[in-house]
């Protein structure tokens, strides 16, 4: 299945999207500000047009992001975690976490104190298939932190 990984720090939130040819990723959330995706490998169809790597495309406010891969492809979704409004729209507060914005802002993995990252790169293996990315999926990944 198409796979995603989330990286974040107090300023930035990046979603890596990895698709096999024919896979579709559908974001089940929108935000009221424009953001951008970077197609870094392969070819994808987005908004009715086809784009080859390397390309950067705007996702307009209040638009569901739906991307279909024409070939094996990867794209990155670029968001700012220091924008409280954006974070609250993607990760609305719930009973367990009153503010995901505050959680991200204050998050410091143990390895920050080591002087170097002890988080190994997270290499992705996935089979073909479509993926709908929900806010809950992202909340789960945020709360897992950098424990790859």
């Amino acid at each position: 299945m198409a796979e995603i990984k989330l990286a974040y720090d107090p300023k930035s939130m990046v979603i890596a999207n990895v698709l096999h040819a024919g896979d579709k990723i559908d974001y089940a959330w929108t935000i009221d500000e424009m953001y951008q995706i970077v197609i870094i490998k392969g070819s994808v169809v987005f908004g009715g047009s086809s784009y080859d790597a390397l390309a950067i495309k705007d996702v307009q406010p209040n638009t569901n992001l739906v991307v279909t891969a024409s070939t094996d492809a990867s794209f990155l979704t670029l968001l700012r975690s220091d924008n409280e409004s954006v974070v609250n729209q993607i990760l609305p507060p719930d009973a367990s976490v009153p503010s995901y914005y505050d959680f991200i802002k204050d998050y410091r993995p143990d390895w920050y104190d080591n002087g170097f990252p002890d988080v190994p790169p997270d290499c992705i293996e996935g089979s073909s298939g479509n993926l709908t990315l929900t806010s809950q999926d992202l909340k789960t990944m945020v709360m897992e932190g950098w424990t790859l």
Partner: protein
Amino acid sequence: MRKFKLITTQDHFLVLVEVQNENQEITCIDVDTGLRGLYPTEAAGFIAEGSATVFLKFGSGDWNKINEVAAPCMTFFSGAAELGSVSTSSSYRAIGIHPKTQSILDQWKPFLGLTDDQITTMLDPTMRESFVEIYSYTMVREMDPDTFEDLTTTSLVLDSEIVYL
């Protein structure tokens, strides 16, 4: 051969590295100190194609190989150790993603060889909705994928010059 591109987007700046040979160095080098990728700020990275080995070095110590990575691969950096990386595939593409702020650009300035004018351009609000390539350059630096030894500067020593003690 290694190609660097620095791209500014709405909220981030991106460092794209493309390599077209095995054994090519991937990491950035501070133009003032000669130190490699110290990652002065947190940075997310994504390897989209190819494979590489990753090394760390503390102070004047030796390079230690810590990872072998293959795309697709998400990674994250932060810290004071020098970080080096060498391609182990004939084609490699990776991207570093940084939030676009004055302070972060200032910290990355020596590693990316940025000028004040380029930083001003990147932070210009009129560029906010643009995809702007700040610069692109190509260089060759061949490294040993097991030891991180610089193969481009290694000099040959004749057998006759070796003294056995």
